[in-house]
């Protein structure tokens, strides 16, 4: 990034001095340390660490001004994420990260908004918000850290726990088939970006998040995440056997490095503009499809549909208000002003 533009500054008057202050802080480059904060308290080997590293790299590479970047999360292990980013952040309520992020986005289109959620967070308690966030299609990058389990609350079944998985609430095995977040998301009106990736292939993780970041709209990325604490062997076979990962590639999707294609030989040429094929790919869970399933940049974004570029000056507000008052006013005889 070469300049900090202020064409998307909030539409309030008298901000010239604030803008100048921003320009003083102009930086041509950021280092990784500019985005790092504290020491993550996740278990060692937890997939969340890999996601954090990828996101910090992405921020650095995109030279995002930390003060103009907001990470919003719910509650869960994964939702600690914003605390480890030296940006603005909201560590909110279980399930409610999306509507908070939407409010931020509508109020401040000049801010970059990221969302980190757990699988329970997004697909269970926050499921209504997930469906509607897809429909609003507001420009933000939403990551679901899907470890198929409730991590923070100590190993209860999540909507994505496979049938039969033994957890503290399903000691004899999970009773229900797992929910497929990809097919659900791809079935929602206004869906504009759907990707899936795994935490253990850093290069793909980075590439996918980068594509998602650049997508103008609601980018939904499901990240299959390891939870060695509660499910130490759950994903072992997928890690061990490259045949159980299906790489999606396309000129309009991810382009794969040779070191990747050498190891992962199950590869599908998938055009992300093909929603029908995307839905078919999405319904397969073994091998795990990894890459961009769907991308459509032409879906309208709610914040643009709704927002107003006019300066909200006091004169504008006054004019609107007086016009409304006029509608309801009863003037005493002889006092009615000419304009009314």
């Amino acid at each position: 990034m070469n300049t900090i533009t202020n064409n998307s500054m909030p539409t309030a008057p008298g901000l010239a001095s604030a803008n100048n202050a921003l320009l003083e802080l102009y930086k041509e480059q950021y280092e990784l340390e500019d985005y790092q904060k504290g020491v993550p308290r996740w278990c060692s080997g937890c997939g969340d660490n890999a996601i954090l590293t990828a996101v910090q790299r992405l921020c650095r590479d995109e030279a995002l001004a930390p003060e103009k970047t907001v990470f919003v999360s719910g509650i869960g292990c994964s939702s600690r994420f914003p605390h480890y980013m030296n940006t603005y952040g909201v560590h909110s309520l279980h399930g409610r990260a999306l509507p908070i992020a939407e409010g931020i986005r509508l109020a401040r289109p000049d801010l970059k908004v990221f969302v980190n959620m757990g699988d329970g967070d997004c697909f269970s308690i926050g499921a209504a918000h997930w469906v509607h966030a897809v429909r609003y299609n507001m420009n933000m990058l939403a990551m679901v850290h899907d470890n198929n389990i409730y991590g923070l609350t100590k190993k209860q079944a999540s909507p994505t726990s496979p049938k039969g998985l033994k957890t503290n609430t399903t000691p004899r095995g999970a009773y229900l088939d797992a929910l497929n977040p990809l097919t659900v998301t791809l079935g929602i009106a206004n869906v504009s970006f759907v990707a899936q990736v795994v935490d253990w292939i850093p290069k793909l993780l980075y590439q996918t998040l980068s594509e998602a970041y650049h997508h103008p709209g609601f980018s939904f990325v499901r990240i299959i995440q390891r939870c060695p604490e509660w499910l130490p062997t759950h994903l072992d076979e997928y890690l061990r056997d490259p045949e159980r990962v299906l790489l999606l590639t396309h000129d309009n999707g991810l382009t794969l490095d040779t070191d990747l294609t050498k190891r992962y030989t199950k590869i599908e040429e998938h055009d992300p503009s093909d929603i029908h094929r995307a839905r078919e790919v999405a319904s397969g869970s073994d091998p795990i499809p990894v890459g961009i399933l769907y991308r459509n940049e032409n879906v309208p974004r709610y914040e643009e549909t709704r927002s107003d570029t006019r300066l909200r000056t006091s004169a504008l507000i006054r004019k609107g208000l007086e016009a409304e008052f006029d509608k309801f006013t009863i003037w005493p005889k002889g006092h009615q002003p000419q304009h009314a």
Partner: protein
Amino acid sequence: MAIEELTKVKSKNKNGRVEQASSPAVEQTRGAGVSPAVAQTSPSAPPLKPKAKVTRLKEHIVEIISDSGEGAQKCGQSFGAIVARMGLGVWTVEIIPAEIRPPARSVAGASGNRIRFGSTGVTNGGNETDLVVAFNEQVLLGRVRANELKPGCTILIESMWREDRRVAESYSTAIDELKAAGYKVYEIPMEVECHKHMPDAKKGKNMFALGLLIGLYSLDLKVGREQVALTFGKKGAKVIESNVALLEAGYAYAQENLDFRYEIPAAKSTEAQIVVNGNTALALGVLASGMEICAMYPITPATSASHYLSDVFEVVGGVVHQAEDEIAACTFAIGASYAGKCTVTITSGPGFSLKQEAIGLAVMGEIPLVVVNVQRGGPSTGQPTKTEQADLMSAIYGSHGDAPKVVLAPATIEDCFYSVIMARKIAETFNMVVVILSDANLANSQAPFTRPVFDEAWLAPPIDQSAVPTGAKPYDWDSKTGLARRFIPGQPGGQHTLTGLAHDEDSHVAYDAEINQRAIRARSLKLAALQKTLKPPTVFGDQTGDLLVIGWGSTKGAIEEAVTELREQGKKVSSMHLTFLQPMAPGIKEILAGFRKVIAIENNWSDLPSDEIIDESNRRYTMLATLLRSRYLVDVDCFSECRGTPLKPATVRRVIMEALS
């Protein structure tokens, strides 16, 4: 009110119709003539029926009721606007059936409007109706059974049912019974008359009825025509024309066929006034507060505020966001507020309950937020269209843990407007959640108030995007006031993660005992800091006496009316109405000390001391009484009703008399 005595003195005239004779409320009874209230009788108006008897009144209560969809509400609202335009004080109350389309001609289906109007300002819906226009006898019976009509009042009823074989019997039985009970019934062939002017006569009845009322109350037909033009303005000249014709037909019918008229002299007003209901006033307040975003989910009786706001907000660059549920509405608002634009979320009871967890997050993160709760009957789905004041405790104490927030209650329609401006200001000054408790009574009532004069200071300041001073922390709680400067995204150097977890000054998650203690103290102190800026409430009446009545919210008009009346009769009673419920203003204890007895009157439940198993050890007091008793250690008594209807001055008067005896 003196007006109540009006029908007590009755006499039968030659036609067998009951007429009102002179009473203390009736200043003057005269024969036909040009009344002072009628500024100008329109040239096209037919001459008054010579026999018509003109009664001068201080005020009257009129009701117009129909099946829903027959336009009685439009008629009532227009009538309210006309009397207001003529300079009379007015308060209109919507009569709303619980269902959107209750079955036709059903006792529970009355839809319409009550209009109380008088020479001086009218502050509430009053007691019982003096004159009712009904489109069928069933909705009328509903109102009779609800004890809303004054015994023996005047009834104007559509008479077409006599010709309808299916219902003729029930109609004539009802009319006979009403007559026998002393009601003065005038049967009017509304549909037949309307048919002369409009092929679909059913549709125009409401404007015919409006014309009748204009005639009966000696109002200016010209103002009536203007109002019809305003009411149907969007629908074009043709529609206006045919409705004016119906209006004039109703007016002419009254002149030619009815033998009584009323006159209510208007006090000359020199101030421009605006006439809106409480919800529109709230929405106008949102506009005037400079807020830009309202996030909501539809719920009765709050929705009309958002309907109106949706229509006008965009004109000034605002957005009404209809979220997927109330939790989303509240968290969306929190997100926008956090990002620097203080936001409002509007709801009613059930939605308010859903927002409570999110409200706690705003309290914890110290994010300014305005939450409007237009209270309805509860618990659960309760009585969606009815009024109640039972969310006071959940507003103050709701959300788990210690979650101090500001709670204030508008008492008038004018207050609804200003309370939003004030709430936004407090929210942003103290970084707090401010809950505005309105209710269905205010939401569905219309009354004029002085047209506000725009003030720049109403508006929200621009978002601070200046760099944060080095070393400053996101929660630098002032040790005296608990206040901390808020960091807004975009401010360089202010990066931090706001969290709903316990946190220290740096917003770092902290489970440390000391830190938690310090943080809770700071959030609590802010209420005290606000309280220090409040003025003691004013006492209505003398500062000392036998009885002080305390209320909050929409009951103010009824309480003060009863107090005024009893004071005129020499009773040593005063009243006090609280705007701030949390924190409570200073000086209240001193005020309470000036009275021998104190009673809170509210629209929420309190156990009846007369119930067999209720005694001092188990009686539940009204919500405000409970708060006052615990804070001021004063033996505050209480009276309450949960009838879903607005408190009546007559009820207050009765309660005061009992308390005094």
